[in-house]
């Protein structure tokens, strides 16, 4: 055997699993097809700047004094220190619907007060919902699928409040159209509303650098630009991984973080499942704009993150056209409580987008569509940030096709397949799934996914 464990994909969950295993003496190798680690949550250079691929917020923020929270759990499990993350908490975020607006901060009582002010008849019901979520055992493997809309309807009687609460939650993690599994909702609600948003001072690069350093110092091997071509299956076990360059590596256990349908596609043989995993349908377009002024000072844009829907019924679906501008997210990294200001203004604009349309464009159509929709998105955002277009000095846009190209996710679905394998098992006995398709999303959630799969199936 070349290794005890081979992990496919050096995203957050793969690295977290790798750190745990290497720390406890397993011989581990992580295979990453790109030159840079991070997977769905990475960084890249644009015109001399290092920029996060799609980071809006690290959710699950709690201050250092809080002792019992998912963030504390992952830091302890990975032997990282809280201070290494240099977290800058958010200021205020907003959810804007035609009829009403809700603000929230990292102090949950602030949101409760907002709901009491704006939905006076709902606040007791909301508190009851919250209590039921707190008692929910967030991080246990093997949850059953329950519709969040059904649960919310049983607690809240104002449909607008339901839509407004769903809006940030679905945008930040749902692989399903218009709904989300209640176990995932519970995790995301806590991560967004009960806990909150923060930004590592230097973005994803900082977190990923810490993880890679910890992994290497624990004795783990990381191979970048190294693509798993297929997994050789004998009976119900993975015997070896065949790399794109022809090399063959063996291990006792294999952990894949690349997604369930994507992992299945690597397997030479796989006993049919009761239900075959469907790839997700939800993808996004995002423009990152660098501005010559700071949005809060010069353009009057104060929120850290703003979620909007033009309709009282929030529509979280694959759009009919290339992009759905009727809802979106505006994120301004400058509006975190930064210890030192960033060198320039940054705005991120995110909308739902249709993968098949983007994927069907030829090269010149694609370029034109990308420019056009980036412009439309800026125009739309000027409702919240007047004169934004006059202050853009550089910009870049990713589309669903970009997501596919750099992450290999079917349909550019950033939250993966709607069919989660919440216990991480596959029909192949020594092959496990961690990360997005295990079901825990967000930076902290996905790190915890890698940790838990490594613990449960290898270490414990």
């Amino acid at each position, binding site marked *: 055997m070349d290794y005890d464990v081979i992990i496919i994909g050096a995203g957050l969950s793969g690295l977290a699993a790798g750190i745990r295993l290497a720390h406890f003496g397993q011989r581990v190798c992580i295979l990453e097809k790109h030159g840079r680690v991070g997977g769905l949550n990475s960084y890249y250079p644009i015109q001399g700047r290092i920029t996060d691929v799609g980071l809006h917020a690290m959710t699950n923020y709690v201050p250092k004094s809080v002792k019992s929270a998912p963030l504390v759990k992952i830091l302890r*499990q990975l032997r990282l220190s*809280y201070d290494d993350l240099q977290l800058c908490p958010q200021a205020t975020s907003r959810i804007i619907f035609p009829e009403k607006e809700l603000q929230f901060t990292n102090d949950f009582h602030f949101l409760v007060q907002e709901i009491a002010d704006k939905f006076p008849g709902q606040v007791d019901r909301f508190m009851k919902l919250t209590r039921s979520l707190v008692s929910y055992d967030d991080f246990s493997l093997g949850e059953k699928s329950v519709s969040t809309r059904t649960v919310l309807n049983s607690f809240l009687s104002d449909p607008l409040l339901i839509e407004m609460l769903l809006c940030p939650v679905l945008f930040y993690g749902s692989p399903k159209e218009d709904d989300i599994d209640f176990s995932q909702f519970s995790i995301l609600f806590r991560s967004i509303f009960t806990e909150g948003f923060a930004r590592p001072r230097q973005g994803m690069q900082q977190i990923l650098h810490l993880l890679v350093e910890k992994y290497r110092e624990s004795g783990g091997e990381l191979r970048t630009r190294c693509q798993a071509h297929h997994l050789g299956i004998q009976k119900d076990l993975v015997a070896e991984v065949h790399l794109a360059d022809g090399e063959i590596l063996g291990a006792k256990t294999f952990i894949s973080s690349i997604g369930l349908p994507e992992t299945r596609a690597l397997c030479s043989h796989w006993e049919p499942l009761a239900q075959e995993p469907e790839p997700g349908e939800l993808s996004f377009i995002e423009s990152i704009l660098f501005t010559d002024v700071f949005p809060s000072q010069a353009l009057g844009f104060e929120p850290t993150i703003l979620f909007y829907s033009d309709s009282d019924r929030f529509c979280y679906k694959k759009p009919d056209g290339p992009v759905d501008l009727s809802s979106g997210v505006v994120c301004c990294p400058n509006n975190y409580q930064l210890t030192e200001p960033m060198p320039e203004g940054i705005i991120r604009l995110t909308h739902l987008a249709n993968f098949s349309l983007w994927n069907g464009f030829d090269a010149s159509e694609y370029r034109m569509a990308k420019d056009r929709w980036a412009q439309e998105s800026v125009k739309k955002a000027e409702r919240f940030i007047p004169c934004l277009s006059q202050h853009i000095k550089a910009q870049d846009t990713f589309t669903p096709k970009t997501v596919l190209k750099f992450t290999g996710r079917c349909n550019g679905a950033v939250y993966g397949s709607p069919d989660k394998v919440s216990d991480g098992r596959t029909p192949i006995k020594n092959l496990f799934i961690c990360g997005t398709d295990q079901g825990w999303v967000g930076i902290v959630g996905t790190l915890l996914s890698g940790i838990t799969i490594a613990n449960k199936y290898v*270490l414990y």
Partner: protein
Amino acid sequence: MTQEEIKASVLDIISEIVPDEDTSHLDPEVRIRDQINLDSMDFLDIIMELRKRYQVDVPEEDYPKLASLNSCAAYLDPWLKDK
């Protein structure tokens, strides 16, 4: 290792796992989990660190014997006294 040294190494393991907790005032007679914030994942990590550092394999039925620092020292003594 003497009993005192065993306690010191257990404390060293605990402070690696929970660096933000103050372990200097732990009462050796009292359950560790009643004095500092240790969840079940943290506790399992103590067991795994003992295996990693001293090749001591603690079977699950003996976990309760590692509740306090004194009981850790008494339980681990047969394995660690010659190390």
